[in-house]
């Protein structure tokens, strides 16, 4: 498995470092979901940031719920407000 999943709150400076970014894959998503390269450095990072491990399906469900909320917000906008935005939010699959 190339990636592993967790939730963690990005506190800011040094939440992830330059060295982290060169040591493992990392991408942030809605709902404080992080997709983390599944290697020793990635696992060590999850522990360092007190991340809560998630199965991919669990992580995907958190992101989907955030997108659904954003879709509901978008649908409630007036036609003029919708023109101010790039389009209705869409669900996507985590890597």
């Amino acid at each position, binding site marked *: 498995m190339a990636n592993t999943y967790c939730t963690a709150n*990005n*506190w*800011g*400076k*040094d*939440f*992830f*470092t*330059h060295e*982290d*970014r*060169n040591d493992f894959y*990392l*991408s*942030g*998503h*809605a*709902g404080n979901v992080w997709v983390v390269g599944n290697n020793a450095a990635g696992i060590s990072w999850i522990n360092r940031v007190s991340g809560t491990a998630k199965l991919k399906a669990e992580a995907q469900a958190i992101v989907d719920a*955030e*997108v659904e*909320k*954003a879709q509901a*917000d*978008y649908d*409630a*906008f007036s036609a*003029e*407000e919708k*023109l*101010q*935005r*790039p*389009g*209705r*939010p*869409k*669900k*996507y699959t985590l890597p």
Partner: protein
Amino acid sequence: MATYKGIQGYSVQKLSEDPTAADVEGQLWYNSGSGKFKIAAAGAGAWSSGGNLNTPRNAIGGIGINTAAVAVGGSDGPGPSPATNAAEVEEYNGTSWTEVTNMPTATKHVMSGGILTAGWYGGGDESGDGTTLSNKCFEYDGTSWTASGNLTEAKNAGCGTGTQTAALITGGAPDPTSLNCMLYNGSSWTETANTATSRLNTAACGNSSAAIVMGGYSPADTAYTGKTESWNGTSWTEVNDMNVARSGAGCGGNGVAPSSSALYAGAYGVPSPTARNETESWDGTSWTVVANLATGRALGGAAISSNTVGLLFGGYMPNTSWKNETEEWNGAPVSAKTVTVS
């Protein structure tokens, strides 16, 4: 046994501890403390996390550099609804953001440039819904905002670049042209030659005499564009495109990067409205894709010094809410690496 000096004709310097790597790039030394040979070498560029903004927002104006940046206005959190304008201004010291003097009028999508002690912003959307665009310009001295000469037209969602005495604004609404370019000399704005491609939410770097403008949404083409145009103080020339066509990176301004060394990160692109996380580096001739942002986002603020040093803050993921996260770019970090010997 032959010595290194006997073979090479010179000695490797002997140091009791490693020097600051950035000060000795390319140098080799023997660390007598650890008993290891070391070399200071540049590594791969990457984004790391910086301090979080106090106020999550998007459509932010950016001023300054990565250790002395200013985030100006924007669309207030938590987003995406309600979309009220923010008047907050925050300063970054390389570690954390501090709220300072508010901008005169809560405004999003301003165009901005300069440095923390000599910054500026112009235009923007004062109503939050695009119905009241501003032609005002304000200068910042690190403490307070002072009104300066008005833009030649009210506009928002273009891009600004340059110093407080040699700035440029191009692109932006109102539609349909989004072409108009104007120059600032420290007191007044003057209309000048237009870009070839109309653009909204575009980005730029340089100043009024040498600049590039890149990316954005082209109303004429009804598509995101990767086109790049170069400004020589008189006219625009189309140069090499970005690799990924997109819109809304470093939305208001692009710090103080020269036209020969730029960075473009994030933005939204296809399939719309996807938050892109790609970063591209401009060397004065062409764009190269480098390391991705950790979190893809559009309409953040930017404070870019060159293609090796930059800051991206706030913005939003089109799928969800406004961001307060900051990422810091180090494009060529120098570190001390141990040399393997046999």
